[in-house]
Every structure is written in structure tokens, then in C-alpha cells.
């Protein structure tokens, strides 16, 4: 007897649907909304750009912007901050979850208290948020990572992935797509030899890149779908004897990567505009808080300069396709 | 003789305790000066003021006519004052040679330490003291006696003008004391001033010219030794006439309580067998390092044993289990009270009641009041001097600390009382009390086993004397057979030369 996983299957999904009610697409955007951003971790350049976009949007809609967050990218610290935000009676919490489940009870408490919860960057379990701003579809990113790797490797050879933490949700789902892509006959000559984890720490990523190159002398491409990882790997390779022999690609910030693109270490990498994610999150939250949308599939709202968006299945709002950066176009971007 | 060091009206208090009050006396170049007094009289406090450890609250020191302000031990060293503290102060991880030379290491090229010179310097000092300690070995693991000898070598190496010795002989036996005295005399005759503290009057009369007596932190008198008698000194120290020092009552021994058979622990002692009967005081004599302490520690169970049995009242004790021994009624007052006897940072109360925390508890719980009452009772019985029961034991004078250890163990009402150097560092008054206590315990039927390096104590107190030499029990002497010569002969294996 006893309570086991299978005996409780399906029982836990019952989440409070506090957002019940009818959407009124014509409701005006409220002013003075208290919108709080809770990124995975403060003091991370990528995060800073994201929430920077958020601040622009909150100012546009005359809301009150707030930024809180831990220094350590852990779910438990995020929970403390969510609790604080509940006490402070925010209107919208825009959160990038460090763990899809750990933040759930708190987020649901927030929703019970009437706070709209928008996740961005890294989703929480869909039972505990109102909408998710998806930077790109998981499928789209996974495909584009494999495409770039294949181009750089010339269609065949060993590739490796340098990811963030072993349990980063977004990273893992991209890697899953990559694996499916690689299994396709078109990519049969590409071999994924290793997934290393740099924990989104610069030094660890640096050392891991080093380890990859030592272990796999025939490595052709390192794919790092994290800004910290790609920068660290590029820096290592640019100053080592591997420069020119091993290609680096992945997701990176143009400002951080400019040097390595220019010195030839990196031929191309991709990214969406992170500022737009924060920007979109603010508008989505405000629209929801104003009653324009409820998070149901098919609802539409306007997000300032980004134009109109439609809510997809499971409350997902997709930002758009990622941009590829190369030596030709990189100077047009500044973030 | 000129006054080399003048102590003028110094006082020192620790919180409410006035340890030294307005004490003045002079040390002359070329004299050995004894400082005596009861435990807690303030002798060590004077020493620490001379060493620069404590700054006098008032009063002053003068060296060769110029005022001497000591900011710390380094100043005292620089002024040519060398101190042997009551408790050895070695660096266990460093080699013996380095311990001796610390701060004065001979230097070679680029001011680096010349190790060879340092080692040979230490070796020379040991030769002068007539002992063989490997200068290269670390100080860790040296016996107390060896530690004391290293301390002495350290003081000698300083070529000091003033040498202060706070009970340097407490851990030494006759031969070593003689060696020390020979060296001390040569220092003295070389023009140094010696301040010598001891509770043993025979040593004082053998070495010193003058004696200063302290009582309760006050200066009582300073006289030529030739002008005073031991009785007179004792009277001034304690402020009254003293009872007999060795009040051993005659007791008809009862049944055998403690039976040791074939006790062995390699390589320290071998095949030790003896018995102690109820009402008996049995002394275990021998030279320092002969293994006596190890034997009693093994009996009590704090040390393991390789072979042999220990029986208390017919029941055999498990090896290595002091709790067993305690439950069977054995108590051990260990030789090193700072390391083994007391928890220096805990209160007097906790120390006195520690071995009985189980029996003092009610339903397994301790509220503190029973412990307090018991601690008060036993410290009073032993006439312990202290401020409050909650004071740290470490702040008591050496003698009072020893009383706390005794209280701690006597309170367990033992059937077998083992005492290892019970009166080491204890003044005559307290010593008599301790002896009376042992004697009356024996009269009550307690079996007492006493390890002692003090021959008068052994001869005065024991019904039987067991002598150990190099880890073996060599002789058993009855009270009538036990003479100084007989014991020394057995302990050294040769005719006594002292």
C-alpha cells in the first residue's frame, strides 16, 4: 500500500484557476500597475538586458517597475522573493523559473492573491502561471542550433554541447530537440559526443570547454546554447592552439561575442533579442491585469512597438524566430 | 651584595580577587631567593609580573637601579629575565632544539636560521643538565619531567641575569633535582639572581640563601634562611601552627579490594601484579618515567592494556572502560590536573560534579540545584578557596585546582582511590589536609593506591611501598622496611648516590 507516484498520478494537476472570468479585448490598459521582475539570477548580463526591456515597457505603460532576485540562481531563493512580492501586493510577477515545480506552490499562492504570473525565459509548470513568453519555440531553437553546427562542421564530424546547469529546463528541452534532429538521416554523419555543463559560471564553463577539447581531439564544433558558456568557450579557444580548428556556435550576446566574431574564433551564432522578452512580458502582464486577456488560447493583445501577439496553446506567447549573427551583421546590434 | 631586581609595592587584582597586594622585596645578584606561601598566596602572580605577562596594577619594578616597565614577555626577555613557568609552555610541533632557541635562533647566511648550530647548542645544554633528550625530536609526547627539563634548558640558554623558577622541581625526582641544583648554583655563583618557588622545604634549604614568605597576596617577611626555621616559615605561611604532616593512622587491613594480575602494556610496563586491601595505603614509587602513571591509568581504564586482569572486590574490570571502573568504585586523581584532571574553562561546579552527573540526575534530568549543593558541600569539605562556584576552574591557583580534582573524586565515594602525585604543587597546609583525608578514607575502609615521587610522602603515608623500575615491579617493602635508601636502591638498581 502507501502513497506512490503512480497512485497519485494526475491528482496534483488541479491548480486554482484564479484567472476565471471573461476577457474583454477592449478594456483599457490600467496605469500604475505594479510589475515585478524576478529573473533566474541578478547580476547576469543576459538577465540585465531582459529586464532592461521590461523596464522600458513598464515605463511606457506608466506602471511601477521593480526588480528583485537572488544572486545564486536557486529555486528556493526565488520562492522567498515570490513570498515577499505577495506580501507587497504586486499586480504582476514576471518570473524566469529556476525550477519549474519548486516555485509552483508560491506562484499559485500569488495567483490566489490576485497577482498575474507571467513566466519568461524559463517556464514554470503550466499549472502555476498565467502565460509564458517563449523566446522562440523550443523546436525552432533546437533546429537552428543543429543547422549552424552542421554548416560549421561541413556536414560531418564530432560535436559537443556546453550547456548551463544540468537541470536548466530550457537548455534541456533544446538539447532534446537537437538529439531528435541529429537522429535524422540528413545529420547522420554528425556525432554528438558529449554534453558538458558549465553551470552558467564563467570559470566552470571555461574549464569544461578545455576538458572537451582535451578529451575529443577530433571535435569540430562546440555548441553552447547559453550566453555564459559560448563566451567562455570562445575565449578559451581564441587564446589556445585550437583556434581555427574548432568552431564555436550557440546562443550568445552580440556585445560579448563581438571580439571573437571579429578575430575569427566564431563564425556564427544566434539569439533572439532578450530585451524584447522582458518587454513583451510587461505588456502581457499588463493586458492580463487589465482584463484584456485571460491566458486562453487564441486571445490577442498588442505589445507596444512589437505589435500584436496571439496566445498559443497552454498560454504560450512566442516572441519570434532567433536572429543569426555573423561578422557581416553583428555591428548592427548593441545588447 | 647589591639589589639587582627590586620589587616595590606591586599589587595585582583579577576582578574581585586581590592576588597580590603591595608586595616589596629585593633580589640580589649572586643569591638564590626562595618565595614561599600557601596555594593562591600570589607567588605565580609575582612571577608573571616579572615575566611581563601581567602588568602590576600599582607599584614598580627596578632593574639595577633603573625603573623597569615591562610591556610584555618580550621586554622581560630583553631585560635579561628568564622564567620557568609553573606549567610547561612548549610548542609540541616544534623540535626540542627549536623550542629552546625560539626567538634566539643562531643565524647564518642571509639571516637564515643555522639549524646545525641550534641543535648543537641544545645538545650542549642537555649535557650540562646531564640528561639525554634528542634535540631533534618534537616536544610532543615528552613526559612532564622531560618537558620541565626542556624548560630549564630554555631558561639556561638565555644567559639571563635574573632567573625565575616557579616550582621547577614539582615533576622531578631526586637525581634530576640535584642536577638542576648544580646548574642553579653555578648560575648563582656566576652573578645571576635566582627566584625559586617550591613547596618543598628541603629543596629550599638546600639551594637558597634568603626566603620571602607570602600569605593571602601580602608580603609577610624576608629573612636569611639561616635565621629562620622550617616551623617558623610554615607558621608565617599559614598563620597558625600546623598539624602533623603525615598523619597516617594505623588500620588493620580488611579484605582485598583491588587485585592486579599480570598487567602488561607494551612497551611501557610488564607483568605487574599486586593487591590493595581495604584500609590500606599502598604507594607506587619509582623514578620519573618508570611507568607508574601508565599502570594506574591502565587500571582505571583510560589507557588500554595488552594483558592481565584487574579485579575490584572480586569483580573483574573490562579493559579500556573508565566508566566500568567508576561503577565498580574506583576513582583516579590523575597526575596532570590541567590536561587530565580538570576542564579548565568550565565552572568549579561542573568540574566537581562531572563524574556523578548520572547519579545526581532525577529521572535522567539535571536541573542544576542538586549539582550546586553537592559541589558546595565538597569544595567546603576540602577548604577550597574560590569566588563563586560558577567561576572557571582555570582562574584558581594551582593548589586550589588540585583540591577541586580531589573533591570531584572523593565525592564519588570510591572503594578504591588511586591518586597520582596527589600533592604535586600543593602547599604544606593543604598537603597535610590531603594526607589526613587519605588517611581517614583508609580508616573508613577505602583502599588507597598512591603514586608519588616525593619520598617523604611515600614513607610517611604508605603501609606498603611498591617500587617500579623501567616498567617492572621490582620490590615490595613493608612500612618498616621502607627507608629512603631502600626505595632509591630499588628504583635505580644501584646504591643511592644522592
Amino acid at each position, binding site marked *: 500500500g502507501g502513497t506512490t507516484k503512480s497512485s497519485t498520478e494526475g491528482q496534483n494537476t488541479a491548480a486554482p484557476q484564479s484567472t476565471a472570468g471573461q476577457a474583454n479585448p477592449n478594456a483599457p490598459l490600467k496605469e500604475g500597475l505594479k510589475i515585478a521582475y524576478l529573473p533566474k539570477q541578478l547580476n547576469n548580463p543576459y538577465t540585465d538586458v531582459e529586464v532592461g526591456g521590461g523596464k522600458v515597457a513598464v515605463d511606457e505603460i506608466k506602471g511601477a517597475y521593480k526588480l528583485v532576485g537572488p544572486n545564486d540562481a536557486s529555486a528556493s531563493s526565488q520562492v522567498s522573493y515570490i513570498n515577499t512580492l505577495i506580501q507587497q501586493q504586486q499586480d504582476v510577477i514576471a518570473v524566469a523559473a529556476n525550477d519549474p515545480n519548486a516555485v509552483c506552490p508560491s506562484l499559485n499562492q500569488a495567483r490566489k492573491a490576485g497577482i498575474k504570473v507571467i513566466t519568461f525565459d524559463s517556464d514554470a509548470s503550466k499549472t502555476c502561471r498565467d502565460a509564458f513568453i517563449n523566446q522562440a519555440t523550443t523546436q525552432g531553437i533546437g533546429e537552428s542550433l543543429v543547422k549552424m553546427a552542421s554548416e560549421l562542421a561541413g556536414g560531418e564530424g564530432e560535436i559537443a554541447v556546453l550547456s548551463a546547469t544540468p537541470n536548466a529546463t530550457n537548455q534541456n528541452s533544446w538539447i532534446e530537440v537537437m538529439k531528435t534532429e541529429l537522429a535524422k538521416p540528413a545529420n547522420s554523419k554528425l556525432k554528438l559526443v558529449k554534453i558538458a555543463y558549465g553551470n552558467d559560471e564563467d570559470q566552470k564553463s571555461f574549464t569544461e570547454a578545455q576538458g*572537451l577539447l582535451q578529451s575529443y581531439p577530433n571535435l569540430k564544433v562546440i555548441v553552447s546554447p547559453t550566453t555564459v558558456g559560448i563566451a567562455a568557450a570562445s575565449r578559451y579557444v581564441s587564446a589556445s592552439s585550437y583556434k581555427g580548428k574548432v568552431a564555436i556556435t550557440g546562443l550568445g550576446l552580440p556585445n560579448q561575442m563581438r571580439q571573437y566574431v571579429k578575430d575569427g574564433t566564431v563564425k556564427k551564432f544566434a539569439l533572439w533579442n532578450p530585451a524584447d522578452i522582458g518587454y513583451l512580458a510587461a505588456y502581457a502582464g499588463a493586458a492580463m491585469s487589465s482584463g484584456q486577456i485571460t491566458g486562453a488560447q487564441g486571445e490577442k493583445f498588442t505589445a507596444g512597438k512589437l505589435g500584436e501577439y496571439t496566445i498559443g496553446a497552454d498560454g504560450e506567447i512566442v516572441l519570434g524566430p532567433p536572429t543569426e549573427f555573423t561578422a557581416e551583421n553583428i555591428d548592427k546590434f548593441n545588447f | 651584595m647589591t639589589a639587582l631586581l627590586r620589587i616595590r609595592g606591586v599589587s595585582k587584582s583579577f576582578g574581585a580577587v586581590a592576588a597580590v597586594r603591595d608586595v616589596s622585596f629585593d633580589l640580589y645578584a649572586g643569591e638564590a631567593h626562595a618565595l614561599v606561601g600557601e596555594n593562591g598566596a600570589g607567588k605565580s602572580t609575582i612571577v608573571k609580573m616579572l615575566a611581563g605577562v601581567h602588568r602590576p596594577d600599582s607599584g614598580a619594578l627596578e632593574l639595577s637601579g633603573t625603573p623597569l616597565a615591562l610591556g610584555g614577555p618580550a621586554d622581560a626577555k630583553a631585560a635579561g629575565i628568564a622564567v620557568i613557568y609553573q606549567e610547561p609552555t612548549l*610548542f609540541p610541533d616544534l623540535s626540542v632544539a627549536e623550542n629552546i632557541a625560539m626567538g634566539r635562533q643562531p643565524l647564518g647566511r642571509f639571516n637564515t*636560521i643555522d639549524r646545525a648550530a641550534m641543535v648543537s647548542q641544545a645538545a650542549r645544554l642537555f649535557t650540562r643538565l646531564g640528561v639525554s633528550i634528542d634535540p631533534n625530536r618534537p616536544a610532543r609526547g615528552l613526559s612532564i619531567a622531560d618537558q620541565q627539563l626542556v624548560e630549564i634548558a630554555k631558561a639556561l640558554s638565555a644567559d639571563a641575569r635574573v632567573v625565575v623558577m616557579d616550582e621547577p622541581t614539582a615533576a622531578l625526582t631526586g637525581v*634530576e633535582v640535584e642536577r638542576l641544583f648544580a646548574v642553579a648554583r653555578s648560575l648563582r655563583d656566576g652573578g645571576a639572581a635566582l627566584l625559586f618557588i617550591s613547596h618543598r622545604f628541603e629543596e629550599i634549604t638546600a639551594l637558597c640563601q634568603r626566603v620571602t614568605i607570602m600569605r593571602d597576596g601580602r608580603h609577610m617577611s624576608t629573612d636569611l634562611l639561616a635565621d629562620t626555621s622550617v616551623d617558623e616559615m610554615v607558621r608565617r605561611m599559614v598563620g597558625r601552627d600546623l598539624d602533623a604532616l603525615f598523619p597516617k593512622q594505623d588500620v588493620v587491613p580488611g579484605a582485598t579490594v583491588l587485585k592486579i594480575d599480570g598487567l602488561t602494556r607494551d612497551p611501557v610496563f610488564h607483568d605487574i601484579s599486586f593487591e590493595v586491601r581495604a584500609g590500606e595505603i599502598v604507594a607506587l614509587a619509582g623514578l620519573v618515567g618508570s611507568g607508574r602513571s601508565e599502570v594506574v591509568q591502565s587500571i582505571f581504564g583510560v589507557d588500554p592494556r595488552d594483558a592481565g586482569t584487574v579485579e575490584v572486590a572480586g569483580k573483574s574490570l573490562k579493559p579500556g572502560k573508565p566508566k566500568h571502573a567508576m561503577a565498580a568504585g574506583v576513582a583516579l586523581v590523575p597526575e596532570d590536573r590541567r590536561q587530565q584532571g580538570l576542564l579548565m574553562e568550565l565552572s568549579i561546579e561542573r568540574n566537581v560534579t562531572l563524574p556523578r552527573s548520572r547519579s545526581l540526575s532525577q529521572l535522567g534530568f539535571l536541573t542544576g540545584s542538586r549539582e550546586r549543593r553537592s559541589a558546595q558541600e565538597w569544595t567546603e569539605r576540602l577548604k577550597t578557596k574560590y569566588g563563586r562556584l560558577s567561576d572557571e576552574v582555570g582562574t584558581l591557583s594551582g593548589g586550589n585546582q588540585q583540591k577541586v580534582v580531589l573533591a570531584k573524586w572523593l565525592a564519588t565515594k570510591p572503594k578504591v582511590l588511586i591518586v597520582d602525585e596527589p600533592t604535586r604543587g600543593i602547599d604544606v597546609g593543604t598537603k597535610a589536609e590531603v594526607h589526613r583525608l587519605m588517611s581517614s578514607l583508609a580508616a573508613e575502609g577505602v583502599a588507597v593506591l598512591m603514586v608519588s615521587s616525593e619520598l617523604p610522602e611515600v614513607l610517611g603515608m604508605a603501609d606498603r611501598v611498591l617500587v617500579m623500575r623501567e616498567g617492572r615491579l621490582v620490590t615490595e617493602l613493608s612500612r618498616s622496611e621502607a627507608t629512603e635508601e631502600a626505595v632509591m636502591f630499588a628504583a635505580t638498581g644501584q646504591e643511592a648516590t644522592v
Partner: protein
Amino acid sequence: MTAVELPAPKRSSLDVVLRARELGIVLALVLLVAVTTISNPRFLSGQSIRDILLNTAILAVLAVGQAVVVITRNIDLSVGSVLGLSAFTVGTLLQNYPGIPVVFALLVGAGVGAACGVLNGVLVRYGNVPALVVTLGTLYVIRGVTYFWAGGSQINADELPPSFLNFGTADIPWLVILAVVVLVVTAVVLRSYRTGRELYAMGSSPQAAQLAGIPVGRRTIGAFVVSGGLAGLAGVLFAARFGTIDAAAGTGMELNVVAAVVVGGVAVFGGSGTVWGAALGALLLTTIGSALAVLEINQFWQQAIVGGLILLAIGADRLVAVRVAAGLKKRGSHVG
């Protein structure tokens, strides 16, 4: 009285123990390298050795400083935070004044660290607060100050002068050379100068040191200044090596450093051990990290193996010590 024979000046048993300790680490190192190389010869390639040594340099500098403090029976848990502060200070400085020579940057870093060391030392000495408490406190405080100052900003490689980055990555391994210099100087001072021996004495018995007239206060502060200064220096090396500096640089490093020192045979209760051992400990830990990556050992096992090896190292060290102590017991003195 018969003359006692002068013992022939021979290696003290103390030295033998220490030698044995360091020998053990060297053996472990050789074994590790051998096994790894057999399975992947590239492990012994020039680039690989270079990488390991460069990575070790930073940890070794920290470990040398930590050893000095641990020898005095203290501990400095703030080194990770000091490294972060120093790295960020130097990074900012170079960002604003790219023309500054590397030597000056090193001095600034060491200076920042030394200042933190003074703070630690003064609190330990004059505040009479145990070092573990003080440095656990300054671990938080210094990290907090760095975060305050840095906020979210990150200094990237492209904002640092190339001469500085070159210092970290050039063909001549400056970092390693610097670390070796630091190691040798510290080792000589500790072994052959009075000041060094006084540090051992303090760690061996604080009370005895006081009574022996050793300026305990000054030496304690001195030890913390050395540790802080070296942590500051390590911060500069860190900046040069990794090129990216944010407020989190060096977070959690303290436990690695203490582990290196402990594995290197420096007793946590002070009084014994050498900086050679500490540096070897750093080398061993770094090599383990690299070797496990090369040996294709599951990433998840790495930390567990490091933990196991630490236990193994201190356990083996203990066995040697026990054997030596048993030897000493048999050599009591006798009146000659």
C-alpha cells in the same frame, strides 16, 4: 656525570613525517597522471599541461596564503570574496585606464587583498574573535560590498587591455612563474627565518607563544595580510586568466582552498605542514578535475570523487602520523 653523546645532526623525525606526507601527494599525482595518460595520451600534451598549470596557479597562490594562516591555528574563509573584490577592482581599473602596466595591476590587487587581510587580522587579534567567525563574516561582507559596487555589470575580455590578457594567456606562463615565486619565497621564510618559525610556534601553542615573547598580535595580523594579499593577487591572476569578471568571481572558492591545504598535509590545528604541501594539494585537486573530464568519467561523479579523494588523503596522512607518534613514544629520555 658521564658526558652525553652529542647526537649526530640528522634529519629530524618531524622532517621525515612532512617529507612522507608530500611524497604521498606526489605519488597520488603521478598515479593519476599515469592512469589518465594511458587512457588518453593527449592528457600529457603541451596544451593540456599548460592548462592544468595555469589553473593550478590561481588555486596554489590562494593555498599558500591559506597555509600561512592555518599554520598559525587560524583560518581564512574570506579568500573567495577577497579574490572577487580584487578581480573586480583591477578589472574596473584596467577598463578605465587601459595603459596601466600589469605589474601595477598586480600591486593594486595585492593591496586590496592585504587591506582585507588587515581587517581580518585586526578583528581576530584585537577583537579576540575566532578566525573562523571573523572570516565567515567577512566572506559575506566583502562579497556583499562587491555586489553593491558591481551590481549586474560584467567586465568582458574585450574591455580589458590585450597586454593584460596576454599576461594570463601568453606563451610564457606568467601565472605559473608568479605562483612558483610566491611559493618559494613563502616556503623559505617559513622554514628558515625566525618570523616563519614564530608562525609555527604560535600555531603549535598560542599560550606558549605569548609567554615566549613572540609578538603574537603582529604575527597574526601579518599572516592574515599575507593570506589576504595573496588572495588579492590571485584575483588579478583570475582576471587575467578568465577575462570575464563579475561580482560573483571566486564564489565558493574558500572550500576548495581549504581542501587543497588539508590534502596538502597542513594540520588544521596549526603548527605543522608546509606551503609545498599546500601547493601540491592545489595541483592534485586541479589535476583530478581535469583528469576526470578527460577520463570521460560521468560529470556527476566528479564531485563525489573529489570528496572521496580528500578523505583518502587525510586518512593516509593520519596513518603516517600515527606510526611516527608510536615511534616517538619509544624514545623517552633517561637521566644520563
